[in-house]
């Protein structure tokens, strides 16, 4: 009798300890990664990292300034194309999306959201690089837009659906036309949520490497045009990391610190935005 009670209690304790341990093990890599980023990136974290072009191996100094500009360029291009497309599609799905066509679109968005990012690189390559016979910022941006769009369509639709029907009905009852109600009342009510979605999607594409490997390609120098190869921070981190040189490894870590800071700032701003609304 007592031995059974003891065994049950002991099992309970052991299982609880295992659950605690698993939570600890899940979080542990985060601390290790942040520690290593700061530890190994610290040596190269100087102003020149943000202001200088990359230098050849052996020459001290040099930075990733062209990559920072390139990341902003490619991300900006992808968003310029992706935001109108994704937000309007989200509006359609939330406000008018009851029929078969809407289900097909929803299904397509779902598929697109699950496509590995490297495959969207192939998309950018076939669409731009093959006909133009050169790697370009356009190719990179269209690959990134394909990652950006499904995320923003989903959050826009979800956010619009959280706006109570009574808000729409109230506006319509006042005689406001339906399109005005949608744009100026429903969408405005959900605006914080939609912007959060956009910022999170931006944070996501900011750090993408795979779709840019054979679209944007990378560049040792300042970008000269959108139809030319362009450097981005993730591409630089990758090529420095797999290089055989120690001082380039240091640059990879420092580049990773810059990248993760950009991602963290964006996700934090995104979260604060929705938190203050609630």
């Amino acid at each position: 009798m007592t031995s059974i009670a003891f065994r049950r209690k002991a099992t309970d304790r052991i299982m609880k300890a295992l659950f605690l341990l698993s939570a600890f093990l899940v979080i542990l890599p985060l601390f290790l990664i942040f520690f290593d980023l700061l530890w190994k990136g610290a040596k190269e974290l100087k102003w020149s990292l943000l202001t200088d072009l990359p230098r050849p191996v052996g020459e001290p100094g040099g930075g990733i300034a062209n990559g920072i500009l390139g990341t902003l360029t490619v991300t900006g291009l992808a968003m310029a194309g992706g935001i109108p497309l994704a937000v309007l599609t989200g509006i359609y799905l939330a406000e008018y999306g009851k029929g078969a066509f809407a289900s097909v679109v929803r299904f397509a968005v779902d598929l697109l959201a699950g496509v590995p990012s490297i495959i969207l690189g192939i998309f950018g390559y076939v669409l731009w690089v093959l006909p133009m016979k050169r790697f370009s910022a356009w190719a990179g941006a269209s690959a990134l837009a394909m990652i950006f769009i499904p995320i923003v369509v989903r959050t826009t639709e979800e956010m619009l659906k959280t706006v109570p029907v009574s808000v729409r009905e109230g506006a319509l009852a006042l005689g406001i036309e339906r399109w005005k109600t949608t744009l100026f009342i429903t969408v405005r009510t959900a605006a914080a949520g939609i912007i959060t979605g956009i910022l999170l999607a931006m944070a996501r594409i900011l750090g993408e490497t795979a779709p840019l490997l054979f679209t944007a390609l990378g560049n040792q120098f300042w970008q000269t045009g959108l139809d030319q190869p362009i450097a981005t921070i993730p591409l630089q981190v990758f090529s420095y990391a797999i290089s055989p040189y120690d001082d380039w490894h240091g640059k990879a870590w420092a580049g990773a610190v810059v990248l993760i800071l950009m991602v963290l700032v964006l996700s934090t701003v995104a979260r604060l935005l929705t938190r203050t609304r609630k």
Partner: protein
Amino acid sequence: MKVGANIKDFLFEKTTALFALCVLGLTLLLFALLIRESLPAIRKFGVTFVTNSTWDPVLEEFAALPFLYGTLVSSFLAILIAVPLGVGSAIFINEFAPGWLKTPISFLAELLAAIPSVIYGLWGIFVLVPILRDNFMKPVSRALGWIPLFQGPVYGPSMLAAGVLLAIMVVPFILSVSREVLATVPQVQKEAVLSLGGTHWEMIRIVIGQHCIPGIFGATILGLGRALGETMAVTMVIGNRPDIVLSLFQPGYSMAAVIANEFTEATGDLYLSALVEIGLVLFLLTIVVNLAAKWILTRMVPGRAGR
């Protein structure tokens, strides 16, 4: 006046529909382009593309089996590690963690999901691989090297390294979906077990056994979908050798990794076409896996349809 408003409403609706059509069109275009560019390789190799294992760009012999193998093995290994950890910590957060600890832990797990994969790869090359090699692979190889799974010389970059790194990357997704699944259990059922004198663990075992197994299976499939397509981190630690070997300590190669590594070097139309066909196979594989996960989860977690 009323007619004018109707026209504007009509135009607005059709404009948004047009944009939705564009998104649909882009998805179809992606699919069409993948098929069009794979055609030369599909014509040349047919089914042998996924059953043969020779990858020789010089002789223009292309087959994807070693990459398919590497993708599947590294992803399953990742799931094997990530599911117990993800589900275990979901149970910890939902059932045991004191209130003040819940938000920080899930916040940290979300951060883990936000780290770009190239940073995981960087950390994998310089931190994880050396740790695994010196503290796990070498001793295990010395003691148990006769077991096929651990055979051969230890280099570091390997199927095991890719699996472990992938596990770290997919665990946040499994964790958050498992929490949603656990949250669907009716409170009364938990209380019923406890009021009959059950311990916490018995409550979890009974309730999860009753309610959550299919949902956790869905979470697992979803994590698998993530792992299959992951490119940078895997490319950087898997070792990039197109061999099919049972040993987890040996280098392997994955479908995403071979595309990443060889696409810009692909001289010749057939080489490029073979790489695109690998992309097509990967695309179809992830679609099937993701649809399966969605199908299971929409049944398990009500109100999850839009995810």
